[in-house]
């Protein structure tokens, strides 16, 4: 299956230069997250609260490929932000939190989050978030089913064998292993 790349949104070197909006009211955490994203050679914009994030996105949603946001923020619940982004911009959103309560994670996924990461976020986790951009695009192109939220997470893992459109740099060579770690299924995949 060939993937058609939307030239308006992605450059030749994707995922390098992938445009991420990072949202967290804690400046220390935000600075660390920004550095993690920069290490992956993404292009990073930061926002200190949900309202700022929404304004940036409303200004031009085509400026971003993916949003990564804290769940607990004072001005607006992260889930509310997630819903609004889903409705208005339909960009992939990754949530993160210190809270690993199953109900919270479930709430995140059912509200449309592509993934739910536990703080303290690791470089390895951030290195593979580009997959959500591809999955989302793929989902939009398969017109038949509506692929969002939970479905996206399920379909995503079965697509591990699809080689995405991207150029590899040395830094990302480890991604082959990281991709497997992203599996919801276990590593043993005899059907591959």
């Amino acid at each position, binding site marked *: 299956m060939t993937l058609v790349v939307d030239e308006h949104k992605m450059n030749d070197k994707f995922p390098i230069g992938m445009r991420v909006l990072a949202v967290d009211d*804690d*400046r*220390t*955490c935000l*600075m*660390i997250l920004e*550095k*993690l994203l*920069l*290490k992956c050679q993404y292009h990073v914009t930061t926002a200190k609260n949900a309202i700022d994030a929404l304004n940036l996105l409303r200004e031009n949603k085509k400026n971003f490929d993916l949003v990564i946001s804290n769940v*607990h923020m004072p001005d607006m619940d992260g889930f509310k932000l997630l819903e609004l982004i889903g409705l208005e911009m339909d960009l992939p959103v990754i949530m993160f939190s*210190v809270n690993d309560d199953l109900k919270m994670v479930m709430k995140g996924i059912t509200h449309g989050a592509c993934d739910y990461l536990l*703080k*303290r976020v*690791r*470089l390895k986790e951030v290195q593979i978030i580009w997959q959500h951009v591809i999955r989302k695009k793929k989902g939009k192109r398969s017109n038949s089913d509506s692929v969002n939220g939970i479905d996206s997470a399920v379909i995503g893992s079965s697509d591990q064998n699809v080689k995405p459109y991207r150029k590899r740099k040395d830094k990302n060579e480890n991604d082959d292993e990281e991709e497997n770690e992203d599996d919801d299924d276990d590593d043993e995949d005899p059907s591959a």
Partner: protein
Amino acid sequence: MDRNNCRRQVAAMKQSLFDQGLLDEQFIQLEELQDDANPNFVEEIVTLYYRDSSRLISNLEQTLERNPLDFNKLDTIMHQFKGSSSSIGAKKVKAESSLIREYCRTGNAEGCRKSYQQMKKEYVALRKKLENYFQLARQAGPLERACRPK
């Protein structure tokens, strides 16, 4: 062999911070993010942490002074404080923060106040130790450079 001496001292100081249980592996993760683009990344993060958390400390102290104690409010501030402290690898501060949150959950005002005093001690002590550490690390310089006192 000044350079090696400096580096050895830095390593020893860091090891000591870990041995005392003051820092956890998150601190190592932060050091791994340090690069030519941000050669003082860890120090910047820690500085930012202490700057922002001082506001939380004020809020905490104001909240603790009130009677009856507003446990919900205290817990909300502690949630934030704990998350921030955790992000720099402040192990003991994080542990004390968890304790305060437990006391909030059980509505134990005295427990909250006592734990807070302990936490603040750890918080202040860590700042001083990290200041010394960064000062020494600056002298040691990155591996390629010789150790020169500033």
